[in-house]
């Protein structure tokens, strides 16, 4: 258990308690901010600080690797020349310049502030960067500040799962894991949880990347469908790999299964061009959640349980055809497709 302390740092509960034990009763209803101010007061050195100081704040508290970090450096001083100009240079922990930003002027809502948006480094953990003021109008010391990078994320990809799953039967699915920062995900593990959070299975991705990808490692699963029809929400949990030298964050991806009763009737679709009457091959047919495509003859066949369906038949360059109704026996539906001429050539060109 931990408690949010000031400045977004997570203070371990134990430490909090130990430090404050003697005064627990007094401080129980005091705002954390005041406590922090009291703590900081202990840290300020006795000598007076009257010269200008650079103060840097970092946002967000924990940046995504390769994400965005916003550094805001402002000058604090008792007195500043009115037309102070300068640039703040930001250097990373290797001493490389990450960027520089000009100070705003005194009329700006945030005067004498330099703001840099830059790409976050990749390595999780704390990085100590430096900010330095370059100005002819005043001098101040370099200041160090911490940029915290979150653990690497894990991408979870699920595919080749049938849109309509028959209850009580098994169905295939593929699970792919990848680290977007480029860590090798071969052999990483995952778990599949059902709607109640119980584990259905645990698995591991293989050593070969999925064709067409550079390094998406995958596993092919055959899973038993739930016994009850309806919508089921499952979760795939990708676990941080053990023994990896870079920390990764656990990732949970939710997926929805459409579990259907056994098919009872058939629906034949005939897709036709409304103007010419010609069959439309390769038209996409969707009677949610069942999907198929018409063949060369412009026809398709779906087997589904009785019920109410919205049927779409669509293909470029036609408007999507839509029909809704009850399907209680074998039937044939002719979809007349109208060409999408909302924009003629004349509309496109001068």
């Amino acid at each position, binding site marked *: 258990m931990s408690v949010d302390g000031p400045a977004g740092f997570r203070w371990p509960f134990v430490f909090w308690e130990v430090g404050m034990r003697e005064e627990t009763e007094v401080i129980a209803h005091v705002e954390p901010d005041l406590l922090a101010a009291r703590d900081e007061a202990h840290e300020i050195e006795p000598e007076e600080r009257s010269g200008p100081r650079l103060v840097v704040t970092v946002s967000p508290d924990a940046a995504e690797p390769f994400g965005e970090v916003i550094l805001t450096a402002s000058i604090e001083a008792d007195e500043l020349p009115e037309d102070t100009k300068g640039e703040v240079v930001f250097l990373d922990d290797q001493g490389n310049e990450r960027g520089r930003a000009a100070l705003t002027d005194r009329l700006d809502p945030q005067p004498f502030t330099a703001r840099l948006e830059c790409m976050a480094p990749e390595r999780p953990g704390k990085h100590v960067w430096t900010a330095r003021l370059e100005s002819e109008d005043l001098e101040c010391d370099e200041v160090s500040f911490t940029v915290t990078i979150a653990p690497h994320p894990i991408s979870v990809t699920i*595919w080749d799962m049938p849109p309509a799953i028959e209850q009580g039967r098994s169905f295939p699915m593929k699970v792919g894991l990848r680290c977007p920062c480029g860590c090798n995900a071969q052999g990483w593990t995952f778990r599949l949880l059902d709607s109640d959070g119980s584990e259905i299975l645990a698995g591991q991705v293989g050593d070969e990347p999925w064709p067409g990808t550079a390094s998406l490692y995958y596993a092919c699963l055959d899973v038993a469908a739930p016994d009850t029809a309806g919508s089921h929400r499952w979760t795939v949990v990708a676990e941080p790999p053990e023994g990896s030298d870079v920390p990764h964050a656990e990732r949970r991806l939710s997926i929805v299964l459409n579990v259907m009763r056994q098919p009872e009737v058939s629906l034949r679709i005939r897709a036709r061009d409304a103007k010419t009457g010609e069959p439309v091959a390769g038209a996409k047919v969707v009677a949610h*959640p069942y999907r198929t*495509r018409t063949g060369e003859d412009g026809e398709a066949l779906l087997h589904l349980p009785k019920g109410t369906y919205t049927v779409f038949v669509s293909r470029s*360059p036609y408007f999507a055809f839509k029909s809704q109704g009850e399907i209680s026996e074998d039937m044939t539906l002719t979809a007349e497709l109208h060409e999408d001429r*909302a924009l003629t*050539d*004349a509309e496109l060109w001068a």
Partner: protein
Amino acid sequence: MTTKGSKGSVETSNGLNRRDFFKASAAAGVSAAALGGAAAAAESTDEIKWDYEYDVVVCGGGCAGLTAAIRARDAGVSVLIVDQNFDLGGRMLHSGSYLSLGGGDPIQKRDMAGESDPEGFITVPPVESPEELDDNIELLFTDVTDWSIVDGKAQSPYRYNEREMMRAWAENCPPTRQFLMDNYVRFTRVSGTHGGGGLSRARAPYCFLMLGDKTDIKAGTITPEDAGVADPERTSPFAPVQMEDATQFVGPNAVRNGVALARPLEFSAREKGVHIMLHRAFVDLIREKPFEGRVIGIRAEYRPRVHPKTGERLESFWQNGNIDERRPSIRIRARKAVILASGGHAGNPQVRSMFYPAMREPAFPTSGFALQGPGGQDASALIAALKIGANLAGMQQNLSYPTTYHISTTLGTRDAYTNMMPGHPTFVFRGSAGINVGNAGFEEFIAVNQVGKRFFNEVRLPKRPAANRYPGDGAAPGKGLDHKPLDWRNCSAEWIRKSYNYDHGLDAALAINEGSRAPNYYSGPLWAIFDQDAVERTGWELRFPYVSEENGYFFKADSIEELAAKIYAGHPFQRVPLSYLAQTVETWNRYVAEGADPEFEREKDAPMYAIAKPPFYALSIMVIWHDSYGGLRCNGRQQVIDMQGQPIPGLYAGGECVGGFNKHGLGKGHVQGFIAGTYAAKEQA
């Protein structure tokens, strides 16, 4: 050197209203300066060292500019065209050549009589019936000033047109048609009318050439290679956009688009001895005094277009008549007049944003930005003329035409308005041709904003309401010949409620989002996100030249998170990371499985598809600012008018820099150029 305007040659087309004493004194003031202020005028002209002198100087060699230049040259005066691009043609060169005029113009009459063209190229019968072509000036003028017409966005395109300018335009449509025909332009059968050209009659043919063994403007032929039809993935230096089949409007072997209009006009201009200075951007007008006196010349800067890798300067297709002047800044004297024809403001985010602040976003270009470069549609005429006191017109008219700015259905390229292929020298500025997925293609992916969130029903995004043009397309209650001009029922509340057909998807795309930051609050780029299944469903060819893995408008990745990272790292206008993309895709897949999209009701219009199968893709979705409406105010002679309502002596304008005419495309520019060229040549030097 010569005294300016000493014989009262300052022309005010309307004369002075005897009741407007205030205006009269202002006008007299101008004349006095012209007459009596000769000494003062002489001082300023004497100070200027002119590098060149011509009778008429035309700023811009496109639709209005070439027309004006040839027309002035026909009157026997010396003419110089100054153009910022490396070649002539402006945007006319990449247009579709759909040229809407009317009023009983020669092509309407030809088709009405069922005749073919004098060369016998046209072998198909007329597309429109005689009644649909039976036009006259009064009807045309009525159409383009019709108070009652309202479009699918409840905006009125004709109500705010400048009336005197419309009268002059209507009267000059037939002579301009003839003029173009006399300068090697060949017109197809008339088929409909273009946007803003009126609802009563069919007025627009295309321009064509015949495929043949030689490209010969006089003979009217073009080779398949030059026309870009020999290879579907090649465009030629002659034709930046591949020409289209004109069989339906001419007969077999005919091709049509802006090449068949711009190249013949350019050929004629060069043949007649018009001089041309390219790579030369007109920057300032030189007026005798800041807000008084005559416009006597221009200042123009050398801004060469060079190949980004070799540094070599791009060269025009033809060179006869070119003046190769490379000095950084020169002053060109116009003894008779300057004609502004340098295009509109669509390519200048700082200026166009006066009409729509969200479009200050520099990520969104104007059409044809590769062909014309950064100097295209840069509002140069507007800026220069405002500096010397010009007045404005039609400043709300950008809102009343559907393509002024719109979402393009061509994805994966910045230059999304045209599909120029490799082969044209400016292809290097776009790097990819893009994939035209059509309206239907928008059902195959999700559209996300710069932070990776969906913002609208994708299927409704590219839809645009129809333009107001013959034969109607739902613009007015009466279709075709049943249309009644000037009828209150054209804009009754009942009709508007019935005909309103705009979903504001574009405006949702331009809205402030989590990534919009002070002070500009840019809305950022837009992305189409899809998977390998979508590629297999659609057959889209995700390869060069349609997309490029290097220009930052197409990305492919193993996972959604990686796709987001690649876009953030690789796209020039992606200022913030797409932090919500993974969550958006996960949520979308849930909606697909559940069959319902609670955010945007996407399931009502077309099927939804999961984005699940790797690899994953991103293609840029572009907002293009194409038309410029709103600009300089002109009278019936295309003279630029000042803030007191008086013509600025020696200054004319035509085409997209002129405001007060909500007409899309070529028909506006050609006639205005014809009028401007006519009167400019008549000015006293």
